[in-house]
């Protein structure tokens, strides 16, 4: 059942398409698309698949490993991460993930969970920042990286927490504003922005549902479910990985791990997702 075409007479053809094509941003078209898409969602052909995979998330394996790494004295300084301050005080994990990215006075910058964990692994444990930043994500067939399992563990300690990414500091507000502009920025040979795929309700690419990341509801669903175990990859993937892989498919150059743009996009999503509930690591195709 086509979603956007709706119940229009078939004979309008090319002209009708010409009239309808770019309207996904227009309020009237949003309403029309939402109506037309209700039928598609109801008959979602992949719902059985998703239900069957809903429980028994292999991400739990990563969470367990992350807990070990969090508590274990490691690195050149032979120290545990239990002194790491993720924004709620040293070693406080409950709800910390739900309030990141945020401004940290000790570094004078806005950091997301991934850049903050790297910061702790460098300053507390003595690991090499360039080495951590060079391979933050596991390659296919490789075991999860330390960072990935730590992110999974930290996220799991915020399960059920309300998302409240702060906007008190001017740096946090700037990060949000830049993230929002980046979200709408069209570039590359395909002219894609984030909004191209994530700018309206009820859309799919192939069979994959696309969250509308211009609204709180969609942002809550996206922000609240990452990190996630990707069944297509057999691995837990983090928000920075998610953003970077979207950027790859946008046909842009590579989004650098820990870059300001990656953090800003996270801030934009997190702020928009405010009031939502963390339920990560989740399971995604």
């Amino acid at each position, binding site marked *: 059942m*086509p*979603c*956007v*075409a709706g119940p229009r007479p*078939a*004979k*309008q*053809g*090319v*002209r009708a*398409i*010409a009239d*309808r*094509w*770019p309207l*996904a*941003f*227009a309020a009237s078209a949003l309403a029309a698309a939402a109506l037309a898409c209700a039928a*598609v969602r109801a008959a979602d052909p992949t719902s059985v698949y998703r239900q069957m995979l809903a429980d028994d998330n292999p991400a739990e394996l990563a969470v367990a490993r992350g807990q070990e790494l969090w508590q274990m004295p490691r690195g050149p300084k032979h120290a545990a991460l239990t002194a790491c301050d993720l924004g709620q005080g040293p070693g406080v994990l409950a709800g910390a993930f739900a309030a990141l990215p945020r401004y940290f006075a000790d570094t004078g910058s806005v950091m997301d969970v991934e850049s903050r964990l790297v910061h702790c692994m460098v300053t507390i444990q003595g690991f090499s920042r360039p080495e951590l930043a060079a391979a933050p994500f596991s390659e296919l067939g490789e075991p999860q990286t330390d960072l990935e399992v730590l992110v999974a563990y930290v996220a799991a300690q915020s399960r059920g927490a309300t998302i409240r990414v702060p906007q008190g500091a*001017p*740096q946090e*507000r700037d*990060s949000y*504003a*830049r993230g929002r*502009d*980046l979200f*709408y*920025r*069209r*570039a*590359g*040979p*395909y*002219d*894609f*922005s984030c909004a*191209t795929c994530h700018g309206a309700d*009820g*859309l*799919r*690419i*192939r*069979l994959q549902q*696309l969250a509308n990341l*211009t609204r709180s509801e969609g942002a809550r669903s996206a922000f609240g479910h990452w990190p996630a175990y990707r069944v297509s990859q057999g691995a837990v993937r983090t928000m920075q990985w998610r953003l970077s892989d979207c*950027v*790859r*498919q946008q*046909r*842009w*150059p*590579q*989004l*650098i791990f820990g*870059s*300001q*743009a*990656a953090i*800003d996009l996270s801030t934009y999503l997190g702020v928009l997702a405010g009031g939502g509930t963390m339920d990560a690591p989740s399971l995604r195709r």
Partner: protein
Amino acid sequence: MRRRCAGKGPPVRTFAPVALMMLALAGGATAEREESGQGGLAQVIASSFRARGQADLDRLRQTPMQLACSVARPDALPADVQQRIRRDALQTVRFPPDGRWLGEWQRGEKIAQSGTGLQYSDPPDAPRGGNCYGCHRLSGTEVAFGTIGPSLYRYRQRNTGDADAMRRTWIRIWNTHAFNACSMMPRFGDAGILTPEQIRDVMALLFDPASPVNR
């Protein structure tokens, strides 16, 4: 023809009519913001991406259309800005010199199914696809289709009686901004994503009565 348009050069062309750029700026439609706090967006972009594979940093430079359309409500752009984008887009379109619109729908279906091409993870020499199914319903039997664009199922039947349908469809595939200033569909011809030969094959997928789109 294949060689000429296969996108050997940088795929994003900087066709830069200065007037359009000015208009876009005057209309407040720029994606760039005043610098503030930890650095403005331009600075952040300059430090946040790295060239990889076939995706070089030039890809981040915006065309006037991209710049003007980088807003939450592109439909609210001033009418004259939209009109200029459409006019400039129309001028980029190259029609088949022999007047032959249709290639083979079987090849067109393969192109429509494939999303390979222009990602830094793609081999630069691999044949590119159009990934039409990513956004559109086409064949009646393929259930894995996206809904970002309208359904194109039974495209031929929908266009019976429209003598101009093929020309208009060609324009839409080549550079759809000729019809809609801030359309979300890639400029498959203008940006060198598909060759004119491939576009002919996709046209056949849409118009050939034997194509699964029309059966």
